[in-house]
């Protein structure tokens, strides 16, 4: 199953903020975590991830710092800010509302299946 581009883009911000809410991280680790959490179904590109991180930084939801672990290479770590946590909470509510609505729609129709052909079309 492939998740469409729109849905990937829409879910990217809460995913990144959610991952960073558990602790600071860096680009590649975030990408891998998304991969693992979605069981490989969410395909993120670098062209999506890094500009998104930079945008979140510009908006003040995250901040970043270059750190050099002992004997390692310089790496850019991102941390969520207070404002970012507030944003995450807001997005969570929105997503919960969306999911709730979808659930309501799907339980009303019991299960999703192709609509049966209409009588007059069959009868022709």
């Amino acid at each position, binding site marked *: 199953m492939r998740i469409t581009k729109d849905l990937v883009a829409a879910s990217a911000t809460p995913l990144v903020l959610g991952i960073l809410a558990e602790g600071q991280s*860096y*680009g*590649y*680790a975030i*990408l*891998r975590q998304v991969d693992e959490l979605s069981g490989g179904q969410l395909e993120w*590109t*670098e*062209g*999506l991830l*890094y*500009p*998104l991180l*930079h*945008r979140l930084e*510009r908006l003040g939801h995250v901040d970043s710092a*270059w750190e050099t672990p002992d004997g390692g*290479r*310089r*790496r*850019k770590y991102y941390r969520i800010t207070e404002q970012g946590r507030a944003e995450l909470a807001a997005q969570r509510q929105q997503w919960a509302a969306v999911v709730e609505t979808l659930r309501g729609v799907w339980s009303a129709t019991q299960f999703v299946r192709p609509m049966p052909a209409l009588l007059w079309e069959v009868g022709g």
Partner: protein
Amino acid sequence: MTVGSDNELEGQIAEWRAYMDRRRELHRPDADELEDHLRGRIADLTGAGLRPDEAFLIAVKRMGSLDELSREFAREHSERLWKQLVLPAEPDPPAAARSRRDLPVMLLCAALAAVAIKVPGLFGVDMEEDDTRFYALNLSLFALPPMAAYFAWKRQVGVRVVAVLAALFAVGGVAANAYPLAQESQSIALTAIHLPLALWLAVGVAYVGGEWGESRRRMDFIRFTGEWLIYFVLLGLGGGVLMAFTAGTFEAIGVDAQVAIFQWVLPCGAMAAVTVAAWLVEAKQSVIENMAPVLTRVFTPLFAVALSAFLVAVVWTNNGIDIERDVLIIFDLLLVVVLGLLLYAISARDLAAPPGLFDRLQLALVVSALVIDAMVLVAITGRISEWGFSPNKTAAVGENLILLTNLAWSAWLFLAFVRGRAAFARLELWQTRYLAAYGAWAWTVVLAFPLVFRFA
């Protein structure tokens, strides 16, 4: 993993990195970040049992095309597509101390110029009274020495160059003030025009840091001149807006600011702007595209069309050129414009490039200007004996001949170049050498004309 394959991997990453660094949308920190990403993925893949070169290929492939990546970055960082002049620019550490002092030194020089123009006022030489003649003659002596001083400081010139500069400005000062010119003398206007030109070349000595013999440095000075002019005009426009608003707002509260504006803001601002414009050109030269060559590109075809149309009109209507008093001046200015178009096309040209359409257009422009000027000269020689040799006419004819000589030889070199018989560099060399001729002529007008024409 062996040491050999490790080195190979580093080489591949360095090559990939070089591609990234060529992208304007990706700044160095972004490329660092992406390199870290690439390395992370390669480490994972080699950990899973792949060979380093395979891991590298897969990691690069996963990252997707560089074009797409840059496009995504550009959407977030659209400001990067506009080169910005950062003030003060990020300097390299060794040059940092000096470039930190660059701004204060420039401001000091600009302030000096602004103050200097008001000093004669202390001695009763007012701008409003009949002393406009004094200011007309001496304007460049207030504006240009501070700018020359700024460049002398910036280029760290030796004592010898400072002495040359001081001598040139001193001679200019003497020439402007020592001659007992008659009240209605034509030489006043001539000196007022030619002294700035002569002293501008003196500024050139400071600009090139005394390496006056170097053709490349002279070309730099020509480039500088074009950019400076553009920046000066822009500063002038901004200053005009500032003064208009100042006058308007003060008038609204019933205070007449006219005197303050015309006696202080305008002269002091104009003098300071000379140095500020020079500093701006210096500060932005490697940051922003040069404007003069861009304007040249736009206007060369237009001027070529206009001049050709003029020639066709002359032939079609069979009208001779109406030789009036000021007609020479107009055609002198035309030659200056054509020369400017030629100079700034040369200044931006890749010397090794083969002749193209633009070069032919340029040649057509120069040739049509030459034909027009030849017609003017032929028409005028008959009249010159009739008028006699006044200072104005002599200066105008002299300038015409100097420009004509330059353009004629340029056309010849251009023709040789377009036909593939000579290198383009010869044209550049000719133009840079010819600067000396302008200097010699300007000094001749300033120093010798009043004597020759007995201060008439």
